[in-house]
Every structure is written in C-alpha cells, then in structure tokens.
C-alpha cells in the first residue's frame, strides 16, 4: 500500500497538467470536442454543487433544476430583451439565481430536514411554471435567442464555440476552486465533522445552521451561471428543457452517487463516466435511466462512497485531499489524544 501512495504526487501533477491543457482547449480541439467538453464542464459544475450540498452540508436537494432554469431565463431576459452583452449577462444570471435563492432558502429551511428535499423540488416546479407565464419569454413553448446575441459571442461559429468553451471552463474551474477552498476552510471542517458526529462539530465551534445556509446560497449563482452558459450553447429557452428535472437533477444525482458522494474526486469521476458512456447508453432508451437508477441503488447499498470510494481503498490516498485533515483534528479535539489504532472494530451487537 505504501508504494501506491508514492503515486499521489505524480497523479496530482497529471491532474493539474490536464486542467492547464483544457484552458487551451479551443486551440487544441475541434468544434465537436469543444461542444462536448462545454457540456461536460456545465454538468461538472452541477455535480460539484449537488455534492457540496448533499455530501457535506446535509441538504439533499431535488430542485437543482430550478436555479439552472432561472439562470437560463435570466440570460434570455438580459440579452434578448435587455440588450445586455452576453458575457455580462452570464454573470447577471448568477446574481438573479442568488437573489431567488434567498427567499427559497428562507422557505425550505422552515421545513424539517426530512421534508427539505421535496420542498426544494416544489420550489423548482413553481419556478418552472412561473417561467412559462413570464411575458415576452415565449410562455410555455419557449423562445430562441436572437442571432444578434449569438453574434456578440464571436463573429464566426468557431469563435462562438471558443467563447462558450472558455466561459464554461472558467465556470468549472471557479466552481472547483470555490468548493475546494470552502471544504478546506474551518466551515468545511465543521461540515465534514458534522457528517460523522453532529455534537462534535458543534463542539468545534462551527455554527452548522449558518454553514448550511451559506452552502445553499453559494451554490445558487453557480447553478444560475451554468444555466446561462448552457443556454448560450443551446440558443433556446423553454420551461421543459431549461428546467429539465431529468437533465439537471436526475442525471446529476446519479453521476455524483455513482462517482462517489462526499468527495471531490467522485463528482468528477461520475460526470466523466456519464459522458464516456452517454452515447452507448442513449441507445438503450428508457433502459438508460433504469440502469443508472439500479446502479445508484446498488452504490448506496454496497459502497456509499461510490466508485471513488472503491478506488480510494485500493489507492489509500486522496487525489484531491479535503477530507483527511478534519477527522484527525476532530479526534484530537474530541478526545485529547490520538484515535485508537490497531484495535479491532468488533460490533458485538449488530443492528437487528
């Protein structure tokens, strides 16, 4: 095992190198690959955000698609109706999603933890239905972005692909770094400790309720910007597709669960796998989702930490270390000594 650990540094180097290479995507890849990667970045952002909430902040949301859709419609409103430059509108879309998240948070946090998940779904559903009622935004059937808006992204199709690619790449990078830094901060330590033991996390002096609210509000702008970037690529909004529960919530949840919830590697792995298998699985029709559903149930039963959990057991190290430090700190603070090591863990009383 010790030998595998020596691969940690080179593997991390490879990861950084890969990220740097992706920054130069438009010069390296053709149009089809760029579109593919743009979609990957957007899905990755959604996966990172859902994982932050469900895997760390103990907020299992089923309403992610609500904020994605809000971002999409905000982008349409700012660009097509307001004449705002799309690069600016993308950021404004994030702001709108954030503003929508504040009352949403105030409402769903009134529900007990058990009910919160479905509460977020109701809000997303209400947002979708509202979007279909907004004047000038195509109502139920949706609307296409005017060509003039697309032109502002670049004079030629390939320049437009590149613009959207960089937007998506910058968003994914920002989402990753924000999540990474947050999880390594004191708040992240508290959240990780909460996952293991709520009282201990309280004892560490982290206000858990505030930390959870912070996470919820933090994810909204990222989801909104992702919705805006997706819309720039699709050049179209409609309640059904911009607020698609299947695309922006169901697939995202499956990706994170199968990849490995509660780690940063998991969402990346899961989203990568999703795109690699997508074309093969799409031929299966409804069986595509049946297979993913069965896989995610099997994951929860057999290895709740997902594929990355399996890989980590073999590797014995984190590629993106965020979760090791807190458990040590937690043990030290809680007990005033090191964790008992080498003692066999025998459950004398297995739950009946």
């Amino acid at each position, binding site marked *: 095992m010790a030998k595998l650990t020596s691969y940690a540094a080179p593997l991390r180097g490879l990861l950084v190198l890969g990220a740097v290479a992706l920054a130069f995507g438009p010069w390296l890849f053709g149009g089809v690959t760029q579109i593919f990667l743009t979609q990957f970045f957007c899905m990755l952002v959604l996966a990172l955000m859902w994982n932050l909430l469900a895997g760390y902040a103990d907020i299992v949301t089923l309403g992610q698609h609500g904020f994605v859709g809000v971002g999409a419609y905000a982008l349409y409103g700012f660009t097509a109706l307001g004449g705002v430059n799309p690069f600016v509108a993308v950021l404004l879309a994030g702001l709108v999603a954030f503003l929508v998240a504040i009352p949403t948070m105030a409402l769903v946090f009134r529900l007990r933890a058990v009910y919160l998940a479905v509460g977020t779904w109701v809000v997303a559903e209400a947002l979708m239905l509202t979007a279909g009622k907004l004047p000038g935004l195509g109502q139920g059937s949706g609307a296409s972005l005017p060509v003039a808006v697309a032109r502002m992204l670049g004079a030629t199709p390939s320049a437009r692909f590149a613009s959207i690619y960089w937007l998506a790449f910058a968003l994914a990078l920002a989402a990753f770094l924000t999540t990474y830094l947050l999880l390594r901060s004191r708040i992240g330590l508290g959240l990780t400790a909460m996952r293991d*033991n709520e009282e*201990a996390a309280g004892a560490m002096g982290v206000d858990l309720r505030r930390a959870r609210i912070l996470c919820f509000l933090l994810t909204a702008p990222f989801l909104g910007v992702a919705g805006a970037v997706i819309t720039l690529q699709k050049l179209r909004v409609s309640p059904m597709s911009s607020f698609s529960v299947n695309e922006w919530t169901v697939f995202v949840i499956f990706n994170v669960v199968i990849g490995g919830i509660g780690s940063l590697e998991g969402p990346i792995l899961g989203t990568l796998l999703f795109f690699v298998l997508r074309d093969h699985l799409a031929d299966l029709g409804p069986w595509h989702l049946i297979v993913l559903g069965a896989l995610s149930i099997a994951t929860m039963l057999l290895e709740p930490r997902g594929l990355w959990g399996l890989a980590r057991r073999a590797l014995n190290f984190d590629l993106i270390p965020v979760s090791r430090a807190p458990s040590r700190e937690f043990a030290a603070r*809680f*007990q005033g000594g090191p964790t008992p090591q080498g*003692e066999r863990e025998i*459950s*004398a*009383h*297995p739950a*009946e």
Partner: protein
Amino acid sequence: MSEPRLTVEGVSVYYGPFRAVHDVSLTVGAGEIVSVIGANGAGKSSLLKAIVGQADRCEGRIAMNGADIGRMGTPAIVRAGVALVPEGRRLFPNLTVEENLSLGWRVGRRGGPRLADVYDIFPVLKERRSSPARVLSGGQQQMVALGRALLADPRFLLCDEISLGLAPTVIADLYALLPGIRDRGIGIVLVEQDIGRSLRASTRFYCMLEGRISLSGSPDAFDRETITRSYFGS
C-alpha cells in the same frame, strides 16, 4: 452452569474514538442485588447499554447462564431475560400508561406476569391507565418504566439511575420494592450516583472510575473512606 448468572468479561465500549468502558468484568447471580456506583461519566450507563446490546461498538464477552448473548440484538437479549430500566425512563410519551405497559413482547402471553400484577404493585398506575405517559409525575413515570421492564419477565433486571430527579419518599418507595423482586429469583443491577442508598440495598458492589472497575466486593468489607477514594480517584 448450575447457578444462573449474568457474566460480563473484559468488556470495552467505544463512542467513536472515545473509550467509555475499559476492560470491565462483573457477575450477577440470580436473586442477588448488585450495585455499580461511580461518578458522572464513569461509564456505568455505557456498561448497562452494552449488556442489552445498545452500545455503538463493544468488545468482550457478555453471557447469561453460560450462553453468549453479546452478539444478539437488543430485542433478542430482552427476550432471553435481561431487561433494562433505562436512564431517563424512555417511556413513549404520547402513548397511554396502559399502552406503555402492554406493548412488551411477553405481555398477555401465558406464564409471564400480567398487567394486573403491575397494577397491584402500583395502584396509582391503574387510576391513570388512560393518561398519556408524558403528563405523569416523575415518580409515576419511573413506576411505568419499572413495571414495563417487569412485564418482560426478566431473569436479570438492570436499573439505570432509577432515583434520579425523584423525591426522597418516592425513592424510598421504589427501593422498598426491590427485595420483593429479588426474592422472585431475579438478579438486580443498580446503577447509581447516590452511593448510600444503593450500597445499603445490595450485597455486593462495583465502583467504576474513568471507565474501569476501581473497587469491588461487599459494602461491609470497606470503610467509607476507601469507597469514596475509589469513587472520586485520588
């Protein structure tokens, strides 16, 4: 095994990384009252929880009449004949007194004690049979908890802090019942912070300090000072 005994051998109990009970051994015979005393946090409650299978993680051997019960789930342990009157009573607050008493697995089955027997011991519970348990006084709640445990027809009865928060006269009434229970061949373990009363009621005692047994034997074999020292540490 000729003589029925509840045996605990080398038991350690963990909460996460924290070891609450450290390599503890004790025995209780049928028809015997044994006290486990110790300061708050000494590991007494954890030990009782481990015996009835409610500890998160526990090592060691727990046996009744020679048969290992350590790997059975709580309901099976209770059915085998070990009942716990838990700290804080753990009644079902929204159920009536009668519902609380009559839900036990043995209630209404042939051979075991019946509801009427509990009402004979605690007449006040019969009067309040239709009240939700949450409106009862602390003493009455403790009676329900004790009655509920007795209805499981136990061979061994573990009582965790039954006097906590009760008026002295109520405590005296509860303690007055113990010899009668013992005389029916039931082995009793009393866990108390209050040393005096429980030591007077028992034939043997174990004193716990920071998760370990610091002293054990007959209460008469030690002077007050020795017991106090092993209680608080020195």
